[in-house]
């Protein structure tokens, strides 16, 4: 069980001892008695999430670009120094292994963050390439500072320069004198930043942020709140919304990026990448699944509760056990995660459906169980993301 460099602070604040284990790292689920409070801090003020545990690889050397371009589906040669790229990567059959962010730090120097540990895959692909791959997971601590006031807070600590940081930019700077790398990225779909720092400066960085952050009601947030925000943002989660092809046995458990709505991040016209041929064929034939948003019809849900003489109840946490989706009694897909969205006042879910049902506006039936009895509520197909505030990408003040 590993603790992140922020543990001295996060452990003090995690009043409920509400931890879980993520890849053998201690991860806070929620700090305060109510994670909705944390959720609202992300959406209306600002909040920090400890992302230190995320696997990170520093890939550098003459063939770093070549290696990455062989592995990922995005075209890395189109990612300038100082830019970050979201990208999936696949196996030979074009099935997704994982996704992550790729930061172009310097000429021939990249950092890839991944969902699962990925060193073996990076090394396996580096045959005959002149490239170094360092696992820097434990030598870099990270904080995601997210929310509408995150820019104001950062500006106060590191200067006006931060104003110039565009969506998916990354830069080296200082926060209250501490050397850091800041990227305008995040997993909440809001205005936000990710800050990378040497572990020995981690606690100091935390303290400086919280000292200045008081004016913005800065609080830490845990995984429960993060889940709600990432679902609103329509961002997929490995092991929940899709499985890594490396971790499942059966073909039907695997997904391609095209099925996951990530086609925009698959550059089929690149010279070569692992899975390219299979994805070209899939594209030509049309993917077997489409990934969409669902908005649950609360009236129909309320009617189901009424059958049991119960008032409508919407659990405050996100859920992530897949549920079947039907159309006229036939199963047409599944919803893989969902949540009550306090800001949208909607019950939403991410779902994978047969393509003919993926058109926005299509009405489908989603399974709900009450006291283990199966019922179906109406839901409407919508485009992802559910929540996309202009401030996420905009420059200047919110």
């Amino acid at each position, binding site marked *: 069980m590993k603790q992140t460099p922020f543990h001295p602070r996060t452990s003090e604040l995690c009043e409920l001892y509400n931890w879980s284990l993520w890849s053998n790292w201690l991860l806070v689920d929620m700090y305060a008695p109510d994670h909705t409070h944390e959720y609202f801090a992300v959406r209306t003020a600002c909040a920090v999430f400890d992302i230190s545990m995320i696997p990170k690889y520093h890939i550098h050397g003459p*063939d770093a670009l*070549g290696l990455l371009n*062989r592995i990922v589906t995005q075209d890395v040669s189109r990612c300038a120094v100082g830019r970050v790229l979201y990208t999936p990567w696949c*196996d*030979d059959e074009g099935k997704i292994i994982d996704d992550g962010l790729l930061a172009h730090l310097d000429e021939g120097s990249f950092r890839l963050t991944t969902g699962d540990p990925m060193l073996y895959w990076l090394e*396996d*692909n580096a*045959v*005959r*390439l002149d490239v170094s791959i360092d696992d820097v997971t434990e030598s870099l601590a990270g904080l995601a500072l997210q929310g509408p006031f995150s820019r104001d807070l950062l500006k106060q600590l590191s200067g006006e320069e931060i104003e110039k940081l565009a969506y998916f930019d990354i830069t080296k700077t200082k926060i209250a004198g501490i050397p850091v790398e800041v990227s305008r990225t995040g997993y909440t779909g809001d205005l936000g930043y990710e800050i990378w720092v040497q572990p020995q400066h981690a606690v100091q960085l935390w303290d400086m942020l919280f000292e200045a952050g008081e004016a913005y009601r800065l609080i830490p947030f845990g995984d429960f709140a993060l889940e709600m925000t990432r679902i609103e943002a329509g961002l997929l989660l490995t092991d929940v919304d899709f499985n890594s092809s490396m971790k499942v046995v059966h073909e039907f458990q695997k997904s391609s990026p095209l099925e996951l709505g990530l086609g925009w991040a698959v550059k089929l016209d690149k010279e*070569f990448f*692992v899975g390219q041929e299979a994805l070209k064929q899939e594209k030509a034939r049309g993917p077997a699944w489409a990934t969409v948003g669902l908005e649950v019809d609360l009236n129909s849900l309320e009617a189901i509760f009424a059958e049991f003489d119960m008032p409508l109840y919407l659990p405050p946490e996100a859920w992530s056990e897949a549920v079947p989706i039907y159309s006229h009694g036939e199963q047409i897909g599944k919803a893989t995660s969902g949540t009550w969205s306090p800001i949208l006042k909607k019950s939403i879910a991410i779902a994978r459906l047969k393509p003919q049902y993926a058109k926005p506006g299509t009405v489908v039936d989603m399974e709900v169980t009450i006291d283990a009895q199966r019922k179906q509520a109406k839901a409407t197909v919508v485009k992802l993301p559910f929540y996309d505030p202009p401030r996420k990408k905009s420059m200047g003040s919110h």
Partner: protein
Amino acid sequence: MENKTSERELSGAKELRNKYDVIVIGAGHNGLVTAGYLAKAGHRVLVLEKREMVGGAAVTEEFFPGYKYSSLASGASALSPAVITDLNLHQHGLEILPTDPLIFSPQPDGSHLTIWHDVTRTADEIAKYSQADAAAYPQFIKVLRSYSQIMAVLNNIPPPDLPDVRWGDMISLLKFVKPVRNLGWEYVAQVIRVLPMPISDLLNEWFESNVVKGTIAASSVSNISWGPQETGTAFALFYNCSVSSNNLFKFSGRVKGGMGALTKSLANAAKSFGAEIMTNSEVAEIVMESGHAIGIKLTNGDLITAAAVVSAVDMRTTFLKFIDPYFLDQKIVKHIQNIKYRGTMARVHYALDELPSFTAAGADVQQLISGTVQIAPTMSYLQKAYDPVKYGRYSKRPYLDIQIPTLTDSTLAPEGKHCMSVTVKYIPFHLHEGDWDEMRGVIRQLVTDTISEYAPDFESCVQDCKVITPLDIEDVYNLPEGNPVHGDMTLDQILWMRPIPGYAQYRTPVHNLYLCSAATHPGGGVTGINGKNSSREILKGLK
């Protein structure tokens, strides 16, 4: 990742376009067999060999003035009779000299066990050590032959590409039905039980004498890197029998003029059908165009194109050197990298002033030592010889296969003198400590001392000596990690898994690139079967 083709314009190298239908890389015996068959079928074939001579692991070299040696392979009985006839090798100078006995196995106590081609004669010899074993031996040989018969059928057809079996595969598998039906399903069940066994377990079921077991077991490990207690070594024994024209577990016979004469006859045959052979021509790269092999580039920069390219060299060189693995599926790269080589043999050649006297041989010495003198007196000796290899160390008491080819072919040495060649096991390629320069001396002394235990006057007969280390086998003869068969024939590297799963049919993920070396099915030995099978697939592809 190198962008190699752009160099071409700069170097001012020559280009030969459309002159050949097929380029064969490597003039080992399999490359030459493939070239022979393709040329015979009317194709314009060019063979390119890195070394100054053809033959690969089957060559004759004059290490000392007047003394000629089969540098690596020496036993000739594996060469497919079909290849000999199809390519008229006898007309092109091939002469195979029989040797009998197969094995002369001297014992530390001065006795000896001799294995003759004749089964009853051998049984009589075995009776010296055990009456029960003498009675069991003919039965053992019968079983060996019947199992090997099934394998011989399999050797000559491309194994199905599991799991994606095609209709064509089913048809070729039909060839398998008749022999299996003749033998009965009971036999098939037996074969399946026996092949994965360690040879030690199998022989323990048959024999009681440690001498008998050791003498037979040695043959099963002669082409594999492992010792007799490892799984699948029983398979190796049956494989030997399935490819050997003597229908026994060890190769015998010599090629007049040494093994190089065999590959020379293959080269002559190929040339007679119109093939061209260029030595001193090292291939640097297989040139590709949108996933298709379109030719090769030599290290001197010359580009030669052809409709098909056949790699008659090992997989590591083919896929990680000739081709840029950058453009291959990850699974394939991984499989190629995982091929086990890990050679464990060395070869020592002596120039002898006179014949050493093997104490155990007595008066019959000239005949008894004319086959293979095998120093592996017992099964435990053999296993102990292997044990240190697991830790990267060499055998202090090695297993030796000793041949004195001048006894059957006096042309190999000056009048009255002799050549002696020794295959030494086990000397691991991956040494835990020490370097190869130092090891050269160590191996020489080790082998000399070991032979002297059985022939006390040996050292005084020695005039000169050359040691070929596992590293030399890689560096000079281009066999990766000194493995004699381009990848160990362990159970996970045979049949549809040879050279790698999914590509057992002499084809590759690269269009128009074929394989034909010992790395392919059915495996190693100077059989020519790989080349023959491969040429059949290539001919289908060229249509």
